């Protein structure tokens, strides 16, 4: 990522924070927010609230059933052969419905030249998400009933010619999923799993399905965290992936993360990520950094 892009991201975040801190206090007379620290999760690379790579059943923003909250985020992943940047925003309506948007940009650097799309060619995608909390509460109520949500992510790849060139069948597609998340207070352990029905190749950045078919497959995400302090959770995530394309292998994703709530309105997440092979470039392991503001 070029310095100007980084500066752009920071500028967006600053604007987001300014907007966030300026308005709700006046509207709610000091009763803005309401969720406990970190219980809104952080933002995934697809824009929905969760961990870094796994979508959780949590609803974005700090508001409870009595209000409308939201969040904005910027994430960067530095890999040996790629640079990832994503940013977006989400609103959480009455802790029931989450609507999210994320823009994903993958700088292919030298791999771009190898694939014949040009050095430093950046693949772009828009992800529109909707998530509905069906039942349960991640923090309160019975420890045996997790918060369960269903959701969909419509992904619109902005580089259809690249998708076609690598053998992707479609340039857009929709993931549907069901997620279950619970903070086991007795043990300070956060548990979650997501079952995702998807045909996305590398999250959709290489299109959806392949020339042999466009069928979705069932993939699984899992998260296991430990809450060390009120503001700090450490954990690991796993995400299985389809392997549709013939030109390159696709591996499951793994991360080890730490999420720190700097304040109720600002959470920083750092992670070590292992994304495996991406479009013929092997062993993509690196660092993930994300900043989220929420109200």
């Amino acid at each position, binding site marked *: 990522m070029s310095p100007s892009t980084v500066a752009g991201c920071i500028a967006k975040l600053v604007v987001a924070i300014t907007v966030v801190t300026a308005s709700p206090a006046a509207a709610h007379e*000091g009763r803005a927010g*309401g969720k406990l620290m970190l219980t809104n999760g952080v933002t995934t690379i697809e824009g929905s609230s969760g961990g870094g790579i796994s979508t959780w059943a949590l609803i974005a923003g700090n508001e409870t059933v009595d209000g409308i909250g939201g969040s904005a985020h910027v994430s960067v992943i530095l890999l040996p052969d790629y640079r990832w940047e994503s940013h977006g925003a989400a609103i959480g309506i009455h802790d029931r419905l989450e609507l999210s948007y994320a823009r994903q940009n993958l700088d292919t650097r030298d791999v771009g030249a190898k694939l014949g799309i040009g050095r430093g060619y950046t693949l772009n995608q828009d992800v529109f998400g909707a998530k509905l909390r069906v039942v349960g509460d991640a923090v309160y109520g019975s*420890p045996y009933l997790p918060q369960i949500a269903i959701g969909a992510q419509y992904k619109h790849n902005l580089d259809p010619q690249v998708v076609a060139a690598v053998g992707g069948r479609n340039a857009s597609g929709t993931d549907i999923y069901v997620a279950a998340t619970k903070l086991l*207070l007795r043990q300070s352990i956060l548990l979650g799993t997501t079952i995702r029905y998807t045909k996305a190749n590398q999250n959709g950045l290489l299109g959806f399905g392949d020339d042999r078919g466009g069928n979705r497959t069932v993939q699984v995400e899992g998260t296991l965290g430990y809450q060390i302090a009120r503001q700090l959770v450490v954990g690991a995530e796993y995400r299985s992936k389809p392997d549709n394309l013939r030109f390159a292998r696709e591996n499951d994703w793994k991360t080890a993360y730490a999420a720190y709530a700097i304040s109720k309105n600002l959470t920083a997440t750092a992670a070590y990520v292992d994304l495996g092979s991406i479009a013929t470039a092997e062993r993509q392991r690196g660092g993930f950094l994300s900043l989220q503001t929420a109200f």
Partner: protein
Amino acid sequence: MLVLALLALLQTAPTPPGEDPVAPYAMSDANAGGRPFKGVAMLEAFNGVAGIDRIVDDLVTTSQADARIGDIFKGQDMIRLRRTLREQFCVLLNGGCRYTGRDMATAHKNLGIQAKDMNALVENLQAAMRREGVSFPAQNAFLGKLAVMKPDVVTR
């Protein structure tokens, strides 16, 4: 027989000094809303009954002065609240007390408590436990006991 046993439980204990009378109800440790922890590890983490009393005093004082939820306590019997809250925490933490208060649904009826009110109280409790030096895992384990009570407390 069962009816007689229930009637026997329906005690009309004398109103403790400084407290307002409340409608008669069946007294039971079960009214505390959770099973006590086993052993003494949790009680020790809270510095015994003296620690529990300090945490409850801190929690009540902080919450009364809290702009978010202070109004909820206006017009309530705060002497009784402090006493029954100490008893409840002590019972749940296996401190050898008896809980003489009402069950959570009855005690919170008509208070109109919202989810964010309960979260604000939890934050004040976390701060009180922190000031008492309770370890974070023990804090969370205790909050786990209170978390299951939310449906009886949050009615709006």
